[in-house]
Structure formats: structure tokens, C-alpha cells
């Protein structure tokens, strides 16, 4: 009764969002998949070419390089960001003076956009490298570690804040009981704190991984892929294929579909892992 009366208001409540969702997500998404199997320079002149765009994408050395570069960045970033974030979170939950100020400072870079972050770190890293007579774009390794440092600076505070919230929600009685039983601080960390906040760790690992994979802005600002596209991550490589390659649209769209599938697999794994953890807890 309640339901049927309400259903008539579908148009008012859902239609505006749904229309925008169709125009800027659903239609572009479906069209994107279709176009990845065609040759096109605009949406209306598409010619069916089967999977040749995909074959071309995977035989494109820039794409393979970007894929490798992105995976390497993601692995290193996931480990370093979460390690440092956890260390800071453990320090900042020890009732030290000024905890709130420290927390606010470490979180702050997260609010600054990727383009601005890129130019800040370009200045700093080039300033250091200048002493050795080289620049950031001299070798791909420099760009790699530059990006790792930048992404650490950007994401540590974010993950730290999530870890702090998780640690603070551990019941105090649990830790008191362990102390009475004679547990050392290290045992309390590895046997109680870490296992209890495991769901948060899973979330942070995947958040870091997804953010690393999707990075575009700071990659563009820091090195723009230089030298010779060796430091372009996947998103930047797809952009270059679309807009800086002659007739690159079909291959660019195929690369984008592959990129989507990789990100979707990561998200799916996260869902499975967090679901299983929830069942374990019950």
C-alpha cells in the first residue's frame, strides 16, 4: 500500500539522477565497449574491426611498459604507504600531547590536487638532483621513485586517519586483560591490535592499490611520462593514445576497456575478501 502509493513518485525522486547517470555514465560506458571493436575518429564513423584494436594494444610497447610501470608503482606504494600510515597511527593513539595537530598536518596533503602535488615535488626532486647534475626526467628510475614519494606524501595521512579510527575502536578491556596476562607491547600489537583491525587493513590496502592504479594528475604534472613515455602510467598512456596519437581512438578505447577490467578485478577481490572477513567475525 505504502509502496504502491510511493511508486508514483519515481519520476520526481529518481528521474533527474537517472537521466544524468544515463547521459554521462551508462551510454558512454556501453558505447565505449562497442567502439573498442571498431575504428573511429568520431562516434558516427565507426567501422567494425573485431578484436584488432586489442591485438594492437597488447603489441604496443608503450602500453606494456605502462602496465609494468603501474603494477610496480602500485606494489611499492601499497607497501610503503600502509607501513608508514600504520606506524603513525600507532604513535598517534598513545595519548601524546598535540595528537590532533599532528594528525591534521599528516592528513593535509591529501586535500591538495594531483596537478599541484606534481609541480611541488617536481621542484623539490629537481632541486636535489641538480646537485648531481641531472633532472627528474633523466632516467625512468627517477620518475618512478619521484612518483612513489609523491604518492606516499599524498596518501599516508588518509590511511593513517582510517587506521587511527580502527585502533581507537578496540575495546580497552581487551588490551588491559592482555597486560594482566603478561603480554608484551609487541605481543599486544601482533596478537590483538592487528588482528582486530584487519578489516580496516584490507580496506586500506585496496584503497591504496585502486588509487595507485588510477593515478593520472600527478603523473602528468610530475614527469608527463618523460623520458620517452617510460614513466607514463596506464591512465596517462590511454590519454596519450586517444589525444596524442594519429588515429589512436580505437586502440585507446581498447586499452581503456583492459584498464577497466583490471580495476574491476581488484574491486571484486576486495569485495570477496571483506565479505569473508565479516563472516569470520560472526
Amino acid at each position, binding site marked *: 500500500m505504502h*509502496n504502491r502509493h510511493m511508486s508514483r513518485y519515481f519520476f*520526481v525522486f529518481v528521474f533527474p*539522477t537517472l537521466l544524468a*547517470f544515463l547521459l554521462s555514465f551508462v551510454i558512454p560506458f556501453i558505447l565505449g565497449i562497442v567502439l573498442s571493436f571498431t575504428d573511429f575518429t568520431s562516434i558516427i564513423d565507426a567501422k567494425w574491426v573485431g578484436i584488432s584494436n586489442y591485438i594492437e594494444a597488447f603489441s604496443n610497447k608503450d602500453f606494456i611498459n605502462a602496465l609494468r610501470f603501474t603494477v610496480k608503482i602500485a606494489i611499492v606504494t601499497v607497501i610503503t604507504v600502509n607501513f608508514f600510515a600504520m606506524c603513525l597511527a600507532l604513535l598517534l593513539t598513545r595519548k*601524546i600531547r*598535540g595528537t590532533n595537530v599532528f594528525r591534521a598536518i599528516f592528513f*593535509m596533503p591529501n586535500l591538495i590536487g594531483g596537478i599541484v602535488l606534481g609541480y611541488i615535488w617536481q621542484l623539490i626532486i629537481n632541486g636535489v638532483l641538480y646537485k648531481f647534475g641531472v633532472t627528474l626526467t633523466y632516467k625512468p628510475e627517477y620518475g618512478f621513485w619521484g612518483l612513489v614519494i609523491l604518492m606516499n606524501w599524498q596518501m599516508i595521512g588518509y590511511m593513517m586517519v582510517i587506521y587511527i579510527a580502527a585502533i581507537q575502536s578496540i575495546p580497552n578491556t581487551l588490551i588491559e586483560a592482555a597486560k594482566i596476562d603478561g603480554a608484551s607491547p609487541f605481543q599486544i600489537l601482533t596478537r590483538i591490535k592487528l588482528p582486530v583491525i584487519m578489516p580496516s587493513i584490507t580496506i586500506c590496502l585496496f584503497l591504496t592499490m585502486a588509487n595507485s592504479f588510477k593515478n593520472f594528475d600527478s603523473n602528468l604534472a610530475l614527469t608527463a611520462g618523460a623520458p620517452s613515455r617510460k614513466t607514463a602510467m596506464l591512465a596517462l598512456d590511454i590519454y596519450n593514445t586517444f589525444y596524442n596519437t594519429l588515429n589512436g581512438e580505437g586502440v585507446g578505447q581498447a586499452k581503456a576497456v583492459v584498464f577497466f577490467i583490471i580495476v*574491476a578485478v581488484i574491486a571484486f577481490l576486495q569485495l570477496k575478501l571483506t565479505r569473508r572477513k565479516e563472516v569470520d567475525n560472526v
Partner: protein
Amino acid sequence: MKDNKGNALLFILLFILSVLYLIPILIVFINSFKGRLYISDQPFALPNAETFYGLKNYTIGLAKTGFFKAAFWSFFITVLSVGVIVICTSMTGWFITRVRNRVNNFLYYAFVFSMIVPFQMVMYTMTKIANMLNLDNPVGIAVIYLGFGAGQSVFLFSGFVKSIPVELEEAAMIDGCNPVKTFFWVVFPVLKPIAITVAILNAMWIWNDYLLPYLVIGAEYKTIPIAIQYLKTGYGGIDMGAMMAMLVLAIIPIIVFYLACQRYIIEGVIAGAVKG
């Protein structure tokens, strides 16, 4: 006693770390007052009589980038889009949670699915559609942001609605309120905490977004990130002095915003991350 000493040491450690954390911004700030030729070579040196440039970098940068215009468009687009997103997705999130039927269930999963799709997947086709439908202006881009941001926002609102009791709404409807009135008078005030979260997450995204506005409206309307990137690509060699000055101007509004609503921002990020 031993604990106090340990805490004092930790305090010093954290103090040093947080200073190190802020140094990159400080260096940019210092360099914004140095002549452009003295920046790339010696970014860690303080300005002296020879290298001090006063506010010249700022005046040059402002002229080159049209920074104030860019700041206006950034502000305009962010406020408009966030307003549209909060109103539309809260209505949708509430409706599809309260009225369970096959269509609404399907829509819910479609919204959740859209959260995992990276922008590059729809970059080209979305830009073309925006052009065709004349959405390539600072007002139309709000529609694009609503569509692409709907996933996470509907998801967050929907999750929150599940946790609030339905009795209040039913009482309002029995008293003769129609669903629209019920939503805005009874439901929306209860949704306020999650609405703040949604507003902050979307504001952070849209304010800093570069690629979407660059592709859709970048030729005519520059937002702050576009103006800064343009400084690099627009005029031959990069003017590091102007760049430093514009980076400082780009960071200032963010810090003001952060200081004004730090608590909401951090809480919003936690809520968004844990549920998203």
C-alpha cells in the same frame, strides 16, 4: 615516569616528522618570492638581495593564467555540482531504499557498479556526448558530475537510510504529507551527517579534478588545475616563478577550507572509505 620520558621522545619525533611533512609547501612558498632563474638551480636557498623578486611572480602569474577567473570557475562549478549532487542523490538514495521493487534494486546495483569504473573508460565517449548535448559549459558540467558522481553518493545515502527507522516517515505520510514534503521536512534533516560527508567527498573531487573539466570545457573555461597545467604547456618554456606563485595561490583556499571544517573532512573521509 619512564612512560613520560618515552612520550616526550615520541613527541619530539612526531614534531620533527610533521615539520618535514610541511617543508615541501614551505619551499614552494619561499621560492614564490625568488626570481625565476634562481628557482630550479637552488630551490633550497632563501631569497637574498639578488634573488628576491617581491610580488612580481604573483603579478606575472596572475596575468598569464587569469587565476582569479579560474578560481571563480572552480568555485562556481564545485558549489553548483555539489549542490545538485547532494539534492538529487539524497532523493534517489532514499527512494530506491524505501521502495523495494525490481527496477529500484537493479538501479542500486547499477550505481554501485559505476563506482568501480575508471574515468578513462568513458573519457572519450562522455566528452563527445557532452559536446553534442551542449553540456560543455560551467552549468552543463554539473549534469556530468551528477551522472558520474551518482554511484558513490547514492550508495552512501542508501546505506545511511537503511539505518534510520521508517516510523517517522510513515507517521508524516499518515498525517497527510506527500512523499516530496515528507522527504524535505522529515527525512532530509535526519540525513544531515551523511549529506555533509557526501558534500565534502564530492567537493574534494570536483575542486581538484583536472582531466574531466579540461576535456569538456577546458578550451573556454579554465579551472585552477587547468590554469596551472596551462602555465606549463601554454607559453614555450615554463616560468618557474609564476608557477610557484600560482601553486601558493592554489593551496591557500584548500588550507582555509581545511582549517574551517577539519573535523567534518576527516570524519567524512573515514565514512566514505569504510563504506565505499
